[in-house]
């Protein structure tokens, strides 16, 4: 079957798209999972984590930023791309301090879920063990920078939805880090609120709501119950209906 005007081929399966839709959105709506981390359906794509890397007509591209177009043949589920995504996840793990057994987010963490999805058995690379202090100054929200992966979802949510611009990314290269928009640099000195969108978009255990950490026990959490590949496509398909 060849691709028609509003169809792309993903791993040789025809998937319909709406004009203007990205490959990632079209795939998820069509029930095809493409791993992704910094992409979020409610925000403009950022294209930084590169986990949604696919091959479009023979060339690598980020599915979250590339618009779907008729005639595209997209490769997603190949051993090479799996290995590539696993390497990216491994690098994210060693760059921060990701100790899953001691993390409140374990089981609800997208980084962890994507590591499961790519069958990561070890972070492989030499650990950085960076020194990143925790900011517990806010009464309702804790920021543990040890687990930040700089996806900028909190930056986008605070700026584009909350209208507060509490967060920004500063520095370059290895020195990149999230900063907080207050004279002291502490979250407690901003007008950040637990009701903000930015308090609820962190895919990892960096921004945590206080006092609810273990309301749902370990082992009964989102990605404990089903793999992220099934959860993400089920949610996307349900939303379209």
């Amino acid at each position, binding site marked *: 079957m060849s691709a028609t005007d509003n169809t792309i081929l993903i791993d040789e399966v025809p998937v319909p798209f709406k004009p203007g839709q990205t490959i990632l959105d079209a795939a998820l709506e069509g029930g095809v999972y493409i791993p992704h981390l910094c992409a979020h359906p409610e925000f403009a794509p950022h294209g930084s984590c590169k986990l949604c890397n696919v091959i479009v007509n023979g060339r690598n591209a980020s599915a979250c930023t590339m618009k779907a177009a008729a005639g595209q043949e997209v490769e997603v589920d190949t051993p090479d791309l799996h290995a590539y995504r696993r390497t990216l996840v491994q690098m994210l*793990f*060693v760059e921060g*301090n*990701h*100790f*899953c*057994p*001691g*993390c409140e987010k*374990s*089981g609800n963490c997208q980084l*962890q879920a994507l*590591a*499961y999805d790519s*069958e990561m*058995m*070890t*972070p*492989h690379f*030499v*650990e950085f*063990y*960076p*020194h*990143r202090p925790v900011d517990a100054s806010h009464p309702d929200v804790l920021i543990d920078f040890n687990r930040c992966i700089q996806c900028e979802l909190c930056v986008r949510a605070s700026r584009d939805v909350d209208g507060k611009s509490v967060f920004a990314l500063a520095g370059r290269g290895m020195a990149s880090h999230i900063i907080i928009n207050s004279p002291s640099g502490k979250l407690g000195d901003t007008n950040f609120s637990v009701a903000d969108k930015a308090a609820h978009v962190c895919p990892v255990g960096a921004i945590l709501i206080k006092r609810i950490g273990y309301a749902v026990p*370990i082992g009964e959490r989102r990605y*404990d119950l*089903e*793999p992220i590949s099934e959860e993400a496509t089920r949610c996307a398909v349900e939303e379209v209906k």
Partner: protein
Amino acid sequence: MNATAETAALPKVRIATTSLAGCFGCHMSFLDIDERILELMKIAELDRSPLTDIKHCGPCDIALIEGGCCNAENVHVLRELRANAKILVAVGACAINGGLPAMRNRLDVGDILNEVYRDPDGVQSHVPNDPELPLLFDKVYPVNEVVRVDYFIPGCPPSGDTLWKYLNDLILGRMPRLDHALLHYD
């Protein structure tokens, strides 16, 4: 892992285990295979292990390493097992990325010792320095940063079922794989 007449006739698989900078949780989880350990012992035997109390390792097929390396003794033990084992497996979060002990890695080891052993009032307190005590490292190191590791079984600890599946695959010569239900880091 059914011990058929065919496998029973083969030489037994020798398995060594050790706990380095770990909490013995992975060994407890190994015992969580429950009565299946009888099946395992039909085709395998334990070499150096806390379960046998054998102090030094001979040539063996599989070495299961729990915990990372936090002191010089850990490295001696790890190297002994690596030198003797055909297959070395890092078991659990601490062996794989240092785990909870590695959360001290951002702190100065001297500051930690002072904080732990020195009284605030300075009365009758000193950092233990007996020559019998193994040298403490500046950091806790994952085992793959010290020796070559063949396989990794994540989890804190990996469940008895996870260890059972992985050991079955290894012993029976299959490509070891864990599906979603058995692969957890927590």
